[in-house]
């Protein structure tokens, strides 16, 4: 890792150079009450005060809807064509958070488990992630309880930390990050003395450990906790759509007469149709069984099968839930109880 100091006021000049040099730059942009990652054309569009966007950054490599291939029917024949990978632009994800960057590791684990998903891989490989360490947090944040933290650099190519009113620490983790630094090298001063990064970071208390949650939930399949926690769940799927690690998808057809596209679309385990057989039989017939799947998938099945956890503690699901289901509270209750 290489460390530099830059003047905070020079960040915009650097971002301007990045926008000029890279085909696509995504950054938090506010519109009304929502802040989302949008393609930007100038540094002024960025909401630098944004703590987290409503939807996570996963769409940068796993769009809500994307084309798997196109088909053209001609008489009895069918021709299939794939999108050229040239259509996936080199992308810089700007002003993401540690919890966004961490989310790509579980996504990659799912998409590259055994069969390699070359569409995801190509988009992910073309992504450079610049995170801003969090100087603040809110009541939904619990990254420190699932192995992350406001200044965690896992998954980031570059992390910026505002040290004081004038100076920003730049940590460069990867070659991709180094390339962005090289776009305007003069503004980066090598670090002359150690700085206390921890001191400026948000203080987010550790409430539990992910290993502890795994141990509890792995033995709680038949526990009444799922019914209790999900009693007010509407099954709207918002938690899955905003989540940085939820990768479940549907495959759908976009048909226009004799031609069309096969699409991959975000899906959610909270939907009743998600697992329903054609016969009408549903192996997860109630919201309680679907909530159990959500928690067990993230905290038991994924660590056991893929070696990664499906949660970065970003708190987006809790912020997005229309009936105020708070994942952190649910996990604390799981960690503190015996569900045998």
């Amino acid at each position, binding site marked *: 890792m290489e460390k530099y100091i830059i003047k905070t006021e020079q960040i915009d000049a650097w971002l301007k150079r990045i926008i000029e040099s890279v085909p696509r730059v995504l950054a938090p942009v506010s519109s009304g009450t929502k802040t989302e990652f949008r393609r930007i054309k100038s540094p002024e569009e960025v909401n630098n005060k944004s703590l987290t966007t409503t939807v996570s950054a996963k769409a940068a490599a796993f769009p809500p809807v994307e084309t*798997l*291939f196109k*088909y053209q*029917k001609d008489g*009895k*024949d*069918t021709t*299939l064509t*794939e999108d050229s990978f040239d259509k996936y632009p080199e992308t810089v994800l700007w002003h993401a958070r540690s919890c966004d960057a961490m989310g790509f590791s579980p996504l990659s684990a*799912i*998409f590259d*488990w*055994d*069969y*390699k*998903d*070359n*569409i995801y*891989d190509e988009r992910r490989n073309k992504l450079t992630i610049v995170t801003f360490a969090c100087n603040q947090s809110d009541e939904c944040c619990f990254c420190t309880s699932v192995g992350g933290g406001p200044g965690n650099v896992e998954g980031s190519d570059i992390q910026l930390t505002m040290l004081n009113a004038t100076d920003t620490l730049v940590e460069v983790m990867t070659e991709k990050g180094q390339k962005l630094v090289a776009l305007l090298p003069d503004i980066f001063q090598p670090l002359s003395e150690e700085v206390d990064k921890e001191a400026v970071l948000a203080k987010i208390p550790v409430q539990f450990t992910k290993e502890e949650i795994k141990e509890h939930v792995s033995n709680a*399949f*038949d526990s009444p906790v799922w019914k209790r926690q999900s009693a007010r769940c509407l099954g709207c799927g918002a938690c899955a759509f905003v989540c940085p690690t939820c*990768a*479940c*998808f*549907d*495959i*759908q*057809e976009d*048909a226009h007469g*004799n031609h*069309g596209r*096969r699409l*991959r679309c975000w*899906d959610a*385990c909270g939907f009743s149709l*998600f*697992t*329903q*057989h*054609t*016969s009408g*039989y549903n*192996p*997860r017939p109630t919201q309680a*069984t679907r909530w159990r*799947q959500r928690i*067990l*998938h993230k905290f*038991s*099945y994924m660590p*056991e*099968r893929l070696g990664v956890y499906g949660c970065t503690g970003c708190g987006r699901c809790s912020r997005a839930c229309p009936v105020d289901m708070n994942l952190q509270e649910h996990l604390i209750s799981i960690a503190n109880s015996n569900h045998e």
Partner: protein
Amino acid sequence: MNENIYLPHIMVIDKITVEAPGVKTFRLKFQNEEEGKAFQFRAGNFAEYSAFGEGESTFCIASAPTRKEYVECTFRHAGRVTSGLNRLEEGQTMGFRGPFGNSFPIEEWKGKNILFVAGGIALPPMRCVIDNVLDLRDQFGDVTIVYGAKSVADLVYKEELAEWNQRSDVKLVTTVDPGGETPDWKGEVGFVPNVLDSVAPNSDNTVAVVCGPPIMIKFTFPVLEKHGFKDENIYTTLENRMKCGVGKCGRCNVGKMYVCKDGPVFSKVQLNDMAPEF
């Protein structure tokens, strides 16, 4: 660079057989002969079948890997994709992705007796194994097939049933649910588990392969147990809703086990350890 795992092979529908009301078998050939030559699968594998414009559905490969010139699938038209497939005619093209999933451990069964128990539309997942075993007939002991459907009309693979019935080296017992028989029905009348019980299968050196609706499986296992079958000698193939077939779309898992990757073939020993959500 890896290939696009969602891109299907283009298949030509070589032959359509109407098996029962609403049930058809498609015999498919690879449009690209090279792809066809490179294609290999094992009994028990499943695949994703596309009706372009409608989508993809998951069925087992119903033909045996010992019959290499084609792949067959049998489906009942019920939803959007199967209705789309149902409208296709011989000579038209459709999509095929696979083979996916695990397979029946046929190699381990050599020298043993095999008991097949199937209900309704669940004969297709078993036909690949039956044909595979019959194509290597001298390597196995006694072969018994117990197959039932709601009514005589609902029995699928009537040609094969007639053929198996003719063979002296296969014991075939067919049955229909009470009320489903016709005046000239020569088979049994009764539910599969009861008929199986009356057949009194010998469990010595025998593997049982069970496939059918959940209710049939539920009542068949105790009958097998009663006749001395051990859990490690009982196999079934699970179905669950799937989209990708390759462990990513996130819906076919039973607890931590993925039907598309760890299955669809499971032994009763494995089923006993699995989360009760199938």
